[in-house]
């Protein structure tokens, strides 16, 4: 049996050839299409023939069309998007593979990413194709509306789209109307004219009605198709139709209720029962209806209903699956609730059982929840939760959790644990504790000694350990992880993997390299053995990042490259969480000055990081990208990346990502000649230059050191001495912690401090020390990023090995920011006195108008001087001019 989910939603309604032809409306839609109206909106209440009109119109267009009938369960972004792609694949072939890969990540990527991916896939199709979204009013989720808004504004060029809905969707309809893209058909257009009513009643339904009765009936129902059809059904076999017609009055709902009872009353008792009992089903199948009604010939009954025109719609060519017209189903359900309320739960229960037995757990849960049979719903949820989480159906799972009463929720520790893991991965740390509380409450109700209880308790502990680790509560995290390891059997690789991952992260933040490395390697091994790909990737990325600070670049890149190669060759589409490794590898290639490789890895890291929703990797990849751009002189790009990183951090990222972010903010602010901004960033960190050094704060203290160097060079000589004291403390801490990557940064800054303080010999010696350490692992950017002052010091480096590496580094100073220090005299054309004045004021952040006022010249004169400055310095932007001038010693 085909899945009703994967097939019947895509079938175009099967049209009865005797249906009333609506040629006027079809002509209007065709005319709209010829005028470039690629979007058709059919918006009217239920029962106006919206789907029938669109199905008839689409069928005569003569090009491929996809049809997607939406239902309430589709009001979930992940599910909606999956069905949208599946519908498009019906006509466009294997499109949307990347799109589906993004959804498989379990987190919704940004709208523009998804729209771009899908539009790109569909843009190459040579012929037009149509997409119909039927029953769109069930979609109320603002995320989906936003997606659809972007989709209709950036659609593939060959797409023609039709929407049927009971109410206008929240799309930019005004813009589409103004841009002449939209044809609208509304209730007033869909009302039957008298001739159409006559065609329905006397033609299609074969009623013997006088023209005056047809006219009166059409007037009473206001041309409402469903009302006319129900009236026609009620009139079949009835004498004196005129009196019946006269009796009809009131609102649609009243007429509808009245007529439905009339129509039902005309049916044999067995058919009435069948209609009411199967009204709880969104899709009808012979077997399913047998299970729900207890009958044994439902397939024939369904065929009979179709023949009798009783508001039943076939959903497939084989006529195995049907559905009731939505309006009719609503009325039948209301009738069932009114007349046999005691039966409703039993019917849902039977449906749930059938769906479960036939492999449709989602529908099984829907009906179990509707039956309030939580004893069925909860195990169904627990047994399938990871599948749905991996599919990205979080919204649906959370919806069920809301429908399940608290007393049953706490009986579902596995479901609560699953949801807590997802929030941890996405950085929603504040949302985890409520789930953990429910886990604890539910575990308290179970047999404490049962192996399953113990396992879940231990998993909860592993989860808390990881949570505490990302929150920076390291001792607590380590204690919990060690408890997990003590409690679990060595064969329980899943839990041991979680524990080792947490331990690695906590030890890394404590700068305990050997322990962290051992824990990470253990995590990688056990996660690989247990196919826990996500944890394996996270452990490897943590190990790689740690190695950058500790000076083990080669080991890190070898380990990471092996895993990336394995994943890329073994998985058709590696999971997007792999972006965490790409970002970390990008950092190492940057240190090695392999800029294009670094950029490639960082870009891939960012792209996949966005898809996976792994905020930590987005933050550190953006920070690294900012550093790369700053190194290339693109300060604007660097600022944008840092702003994005800061925003991402606020959305929820581990505490350990903050130090590098602040450090880079300081570096950029100083490169922009904005010391106040640098000071503000440091103040926000609440870590002062006098604080005791810890592995957590040392990168922020390095940023303090950079600021002191800047201030010292700007004339505050006492800052240089403060800097040297701080450098001493940082050196001692980095040496004792064997963090060579950090030590190098300290030494390179310290060498510049000494030189700036006039101790050229001390500066040279410190630089020699740095070069000696750096050459082993090939650190380069630590020197190159500092520009001319470091170049000068490198030129003075002595000693056989160090001098050779220094010469290699000197050969790499190529970009404008790497240019050696030069005097005004070394410019091809020196700046005029006025240009120097303008440059100085530009560096102070003054606008052209302010400079003009200060120098008592016109703004145009200032522009003229600025142009001259740019030309002489060989730059194109103000920030570049200031930076270059600083490096040339012109400021």
């Amino acid at each position, binding site marked *: 049996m085909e899945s009703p989910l994967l097939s019947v939603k895509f079938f175009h309604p099967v049209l009865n050839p005797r249906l009333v032809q609506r040629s006027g409306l079809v002509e209007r839609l065709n005319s709209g299409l010829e005028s470039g109206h690629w979007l058709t909106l059919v*918006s*009217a*209440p239920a029962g106006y023939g919206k789907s029938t009109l669109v199905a008839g119109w689409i069928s005569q267009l003569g090009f491929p069309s996809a049809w997607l009938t939406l239902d309430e369960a589709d009001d979930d972004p992940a599910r909606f998007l999956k069905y949208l792609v599946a519908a498009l694949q019906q006509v466009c072939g294997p499109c949307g593979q990347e799109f589906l890969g993004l959804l498989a990540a379990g987190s919704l990527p940004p709208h523009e990413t998804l729209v771009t991916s899908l539009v790109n896939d569909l843009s190459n199709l040579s012929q037009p194709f149509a997409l119909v979204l039927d029953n769109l*009013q069930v979609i*109320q*989720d*603002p995320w989906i*509306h936003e997606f659809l808004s972007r989709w209709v504004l950036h659609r593939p060029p060959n797409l023609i789209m039709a929407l049927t*809905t*009971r*109410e*206008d*969707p*929240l*799309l*930019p*309809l*005004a*813009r589409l*109307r*103004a841009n002449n893209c939209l044809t609208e058909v*509304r*209730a*007033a*257009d*869909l*009302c039957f004219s008298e001739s159409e009513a006559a065609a329905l009643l006397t033609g299609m339904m074969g009623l013997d009605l006088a023209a005056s009765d047809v006219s009166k009936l059409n007037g009473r129902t*206001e041309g*409402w198709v469903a009302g006319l059809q129900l009236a026609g059904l009620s009139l079949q076999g009835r004498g004196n139709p005129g009196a019946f017609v006269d009796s009809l*009055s*009131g*609102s*649609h709902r*009243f007429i509808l209720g009245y007529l439905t009872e009339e129509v039902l009353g005309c049916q044999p008792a067995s058919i009435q029962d069948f209609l009411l009992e199967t009204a709880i089903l969104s899709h009808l199948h012979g077997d399913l209806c047998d299970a729900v009604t207890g009958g044994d010939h439902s397939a024939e009954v369904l065929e009979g209903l179709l023949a009798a025109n009783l508001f039943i719609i076939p959903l497939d060519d084989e006529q195995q699956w049907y559905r009731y017209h939505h309006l009719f189903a609503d009325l039948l359900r209301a009738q069932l609730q009114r007349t046999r309320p005691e039966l409703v739960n039993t019917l849902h229960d039977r449906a749930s059982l059938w769906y479960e037995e036939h492999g449709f757990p989602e529908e099984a849960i829907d009906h179990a929840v509707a039956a309030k049979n939580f004893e069925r719903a909860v195990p169904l949820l627990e047994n399938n939760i990871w599948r749905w989480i991996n599919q990205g159906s979080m919204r649906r799972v959370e919806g069920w959790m809301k429908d399940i009463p608290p007393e049953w929720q706490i009986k579902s520790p596995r479901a609560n644990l699953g949801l807590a893991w997802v929030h941890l991965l996405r950085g929603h740390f504040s949302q985890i504790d409520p789930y953990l509380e429910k886990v604890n409450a539910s575990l308290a109700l179970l047999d404490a000694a049962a192996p399953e209880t113990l396992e879940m308790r231990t998993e909860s502990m592993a989860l808390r350990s990881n949570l505490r680790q990302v929150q920076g509560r390291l001792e607590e995290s380590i204690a919990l992880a060690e408890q997990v390891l003590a409690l679990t059997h060595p064969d329980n690789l899943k839990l041991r993997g979680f524990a080792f991952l947490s331990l690695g992260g906590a030890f890394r933040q404590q700068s305990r390299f050997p322990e962290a490395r051992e824990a990470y390697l253990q995590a990688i091994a056990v996660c690989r053995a247990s196919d826990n790909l996500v944890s394996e990737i996270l452990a490897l990325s943590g190990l790689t990042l740690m190695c950058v600070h500790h000076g083990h670049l080669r080991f890190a890149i070898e380990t990471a490259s092996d895993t990336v190669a394995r994943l890329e060759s073994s998985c058709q589409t590696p999971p997007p969480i792999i972006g965490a490794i790409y970002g970390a590898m990008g950092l190492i290639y940057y240190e090695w000055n392999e800029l294009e490789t670094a950029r490639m890895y960082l870009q891939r890291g960012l792209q996949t990081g966005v898809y996976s929703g792994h905020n930590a990797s987005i933050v550190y990849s953006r920070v690294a990208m900012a550093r790369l751009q700053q190194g290339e002189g693109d300060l604007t790009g660097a600022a944008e990346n840092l702003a994005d990183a800061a925003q991402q951090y606020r959305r929820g990222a581990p505490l350990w990502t903050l130090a590098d972010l602040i450090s880079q903010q300081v570096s950029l602010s100083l490169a922009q000649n904005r010391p106040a901004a640098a000071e503000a960033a440091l103040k926000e960190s609440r870590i002062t230059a006098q604080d005791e050094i810890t592995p957590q704060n040392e990168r922020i203290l390095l940023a303090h050191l950079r600021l002191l160097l800047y201030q010292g060079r700007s004339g505050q000589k006492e800052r240089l001495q403060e800097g040297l004291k701080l450098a001493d403390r940082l050196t001692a801490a980095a040496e004792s912690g064997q963090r060579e990557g950090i030590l190098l940064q300290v030494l390179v800054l310290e060498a510049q401090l000494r030189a700036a303080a006039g101790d050229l010999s001390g500066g040279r010696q410190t630089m020699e020390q740095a070069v000696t350490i750096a050459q082993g692992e090939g650190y380069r950017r630590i020197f190159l990023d500092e520009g001319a002052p470091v170049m000068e010091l490198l030129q003075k480096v002595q000693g056989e090995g160090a001098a050779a590496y220094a010469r290699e580094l000197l050969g790499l100073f190529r970009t404008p920011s790497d240019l050696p220090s030069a005097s005004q005299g070394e410019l091809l054309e020196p700046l005029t006195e006025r240009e120097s004045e303008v440059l100085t004021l530009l560096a102070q952040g003054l606008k052209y108008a302010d400079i003009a006022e200060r120098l008592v010249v016109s703004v145009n004169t200032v522009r003229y001087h600025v142009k001259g400055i740019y030309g002489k310095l060989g730059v194109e932007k103000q920030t570049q001019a200031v930076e270059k001038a600083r490096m040339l010693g012109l400021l």
Partner: protein
Amino acid sequence: MPPAHPETKIGDQRTYRLRLVGSVDEDFFRTICPAGSAFQQEGELFTLSNIQTDQSGILGLVRGLHNLGCIIIELSII
């Protein structure tokens, strides 16, 4: 039973006024409301007037704004 509102049938277009509280900007209203609609803002209170649409249009607008977290204060036919 007499019609609930003899002046307005289900498919008729009418001119509506909607007052709501919410943090939605005017540009957004302009993209979703029919042409000719007017907007007035006093702090967080918005008045959308001259909305010419039918029942499906006004229902979709109200529900969409509700889904975005807006609080509907008043809806009337002018």
